[in-house]
């Protein structure tokens, strides 16, 4: 009886434990395997030191990325870069988790300019400590200002710019001629551009815009031309409610008001997409538009016979020529990276720090701007410019000292989000430009006070 009873509970217990053990085993194997893949600790195959690299380029960009990695690996007998493409939408969370978990990639590209936030948070390793004196000299003296002035935090370089977008005016020569304007003589001032663009506007029978000549939008995009911006390097402080920023915002809001805020909103809302073949400029809904150099490749791909030209944004009276806001991509080495030396070799190879001429083909592969005059003058880059003459305007702009980027303060993403928010309020007419910039200043001061109260270094 006792025996039977024992067997009665013992068998299910065994079964239960077996199931639990099986699940635990599967989970453990899964985790271990994942860890090995992530951290590159497999003792197998690689005779060379593996350098794990995460990036977000897929689709048409992937072959260009693969070429960089293949060429680097062919040039090396010590390191081997193993690239992993991560989905852009999850890249940041994945990256931060990998650093928190102590198993980050050795090198990673960053599309979001959060270098200061992450540097303050010990997420990144400094890069300048890897540089030889010769490399440092070249970097600081021979690359374009936008390249060597960004990516710093507290005297150390944490992000090496590998790509920057600068903005210039794309304009439709066919529409210029149709409106009786000479496409060979693009306006020399912003005021002139704004005035002639009204000749390019078209409306339907109901008075709705079917085309707008030139529609300025976004304080971030226009502030640089007005001599404005969001950061003063001399004082290492943010610039928000300045006369220059106010002028820029006033200009955008006034131009939109002249067109009719409601009509502009409807026009904007009706635009299909900002990318590919539906980009309003290709579609013919905007005659002049301020956009980045990467559109040259898109136009070539989607509408090669488009009759268009490119010119720098003409400055307003008293403004700055050759000014632009620039979105940049950085190469970074995360804190806890196991092969930072190999990572640095890869960064150097790709950015062309010790051989800008050789790295030019990687920039042209992506349709990127050169990072230095040496790279721009290299045979590869010159050949690319002969093939894509419209790129020249952007190459000239890249050398400009008036390019600004996200301010390198540790609360930079909060700041950029708030700039976007007050800009939206002003462009919709819910706040006046003065109120908008005052609100921006108040919100930012509050956030700084909060961070100071928590003991953060500003």
């Amino acid at each position, binding site marked *: 009886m006792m025996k039977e*009873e024992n067997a009665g*509970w013992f068998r*299910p*217990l065994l079964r*239960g*434990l077996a*199931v*639990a053990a099986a*699940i*635990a085993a599967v989970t453990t194997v899964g985790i271990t395997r994942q860890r090995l893949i992530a951290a590159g600790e497999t003792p197998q195959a690689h005779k060379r030191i593996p350098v794990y690299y995460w990036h977000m380029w897929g689709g048409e960009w992937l072959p260009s990325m693969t070429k960089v990695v293949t060429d680097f690996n062919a040039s090396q007998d010590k390191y081997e870069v193993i690239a992993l493409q991560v989905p852009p939408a999850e890249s*940041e*969370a994945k990256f*931060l*988790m990998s*650093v*928190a978990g102590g198993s980050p990639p050795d090198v990673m590209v960053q599309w979001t300019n*959060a270098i200061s*936030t*992450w540097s303050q*948070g*010990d*997420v990144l390793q400094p890069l300048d400590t890897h540089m030889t004196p010769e490399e440092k000299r070249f970097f600081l003296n021979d690359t374009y200002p936008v390249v060597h002035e960004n990516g710093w935090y507290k005297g150390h370089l944490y992000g090496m710019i590998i790509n920057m977008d600068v903005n210039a005016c794309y304009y439709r020569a066919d529409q210029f001629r149709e409106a009786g304007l000479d496409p060979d003589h693009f306006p020399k001032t912003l005021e002139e551009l704004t005035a002639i663009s009204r000749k390019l506007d078209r409306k339907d029978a109901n008075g709705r815009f079917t085309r707008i000549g030139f529609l300025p939008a976004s304080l971030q995009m226009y502030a640089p031309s007005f001599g404005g911006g969001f950061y003063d390097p001399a004082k290492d402080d943010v610039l928000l409610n300045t006369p220059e920023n106010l002028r820029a915002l006033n200009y955008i809001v006034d131009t939109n008001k002249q067109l009719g805020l409601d009509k502009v*909103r*409807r026009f*904007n*809302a*009706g635009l*299909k997409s900002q990318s590919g073949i539906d980009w309003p400029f290709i579609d013919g809904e905007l005659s002049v538009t301020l956009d980045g150099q990467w559109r040259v490749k898109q136009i070539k791909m989607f509408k090669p016979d488009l009759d268009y030209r490119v010119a720098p944004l003409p400055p307003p009276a008293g403004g700055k020529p050759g000014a632009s806001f620039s979105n940049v991509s950085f190469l970074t080495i995360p*804190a806890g990276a196991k092969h930072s030396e190999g990572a640095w070799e890869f960064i150097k190879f790709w950015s062309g720090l010790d051989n800008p001429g050789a790295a030019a083909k990687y920039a042209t592969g992506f349709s990127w701007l050169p990072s230095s005059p040496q790279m721009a003058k290299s045979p590869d880059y010159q050949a690319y410019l002969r093939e894509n003459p419209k790129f020249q305007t952007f190459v000239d702009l890249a050398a400009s000292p008036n390019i600004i980027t996200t301010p390198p303060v540790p*609360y930079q*993403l*909060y700041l950029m*989000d708030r700039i*976007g*928010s007050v800009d*939206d*309020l002003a462009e*919709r007419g*819910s706040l006046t430009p003065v109120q908008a910039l005052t609100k921006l200043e108040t*919100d930012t001061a*509050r956030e700084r*006070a*909060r961070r100071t*109260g*928590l*003991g*953060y270094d500003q």
Partner: protein
Amino acid sequence: MVSAKKSLVGYAFISPWLLGFLAFTAYPFLTSLYLSFTRYNIVQTPVWVGGANYHNLLTGDPLFWKSLGVTFHFALIAVPLGVILGVTLALLLNLDLKGMGVYRTIFFLPSILPTVATSVVFLWLFNPEIGLINRILRAVGVTGPEWLQSPQWALPSLVILSLWAVGGSMVIYLAGLKDIPTHLYEAATIDGATAWQRLRHVTLPMLSPVIFFNLIMGVIGVFQYFTEAYIMTPGGGPEDATHFYAVYLFERAWRYLDMGYASAMAWVLFLVIMVITGLLFWTQRRWVHYEG
């Protein structure tokens, strides 16, 4: 002794779940409470800051109040409408008509589609100029609003989207309706009750436990509303009109790396949901009818 051994067997069987619960629910849950009293960016060691995060939230963060307001506003419209529409549809789909299975399937289908896919489709439907909704309105001579681009209409647009997926709760109502004993209707009919009286005095009271269940789940769901707003109105929408609480919490955690602050926000949200759920439980005595 035997009972202890039997318990052991039981625990062994549920141990995978138990371990999972302890490791992935209980531990993060309690840790977030601790983290809400710290300054923490997920990489550095948390630094104790006392109640500073809660103090900042309640006194120095207009966006916190704004996002809480947006979420309440949404809850006040979306939850009651969801209940009314869900019950109405369930009542209609409970009629004894030919081909009812097909209708039920049609109404249930939207709720099984992935949220992201639905959101992207609705982005096009809501386009003020080329979207289907405004085209239809234009065809009947009405100028449609700017939907997601308008500060006044962005939130109602998301409410409409939420109603589109009402099929999930509708199925539960339908199951509830099937559970109502037919003899109650027979008795009511014999007593001369009209269709409206049968609905008012038989169907709704008998369905009230199911309505209560869906109400609680709906409230909990809307206070965590995130995906649709994040995809369709990035950055909080026009003039922060759809800057939902969960969206702001996500930004604080993953964009600004303020995990401590975000944890405090999560606990405030938890308390808000608890209080509202508590209030609903308190009111249920007045309107929820449990058979027997």
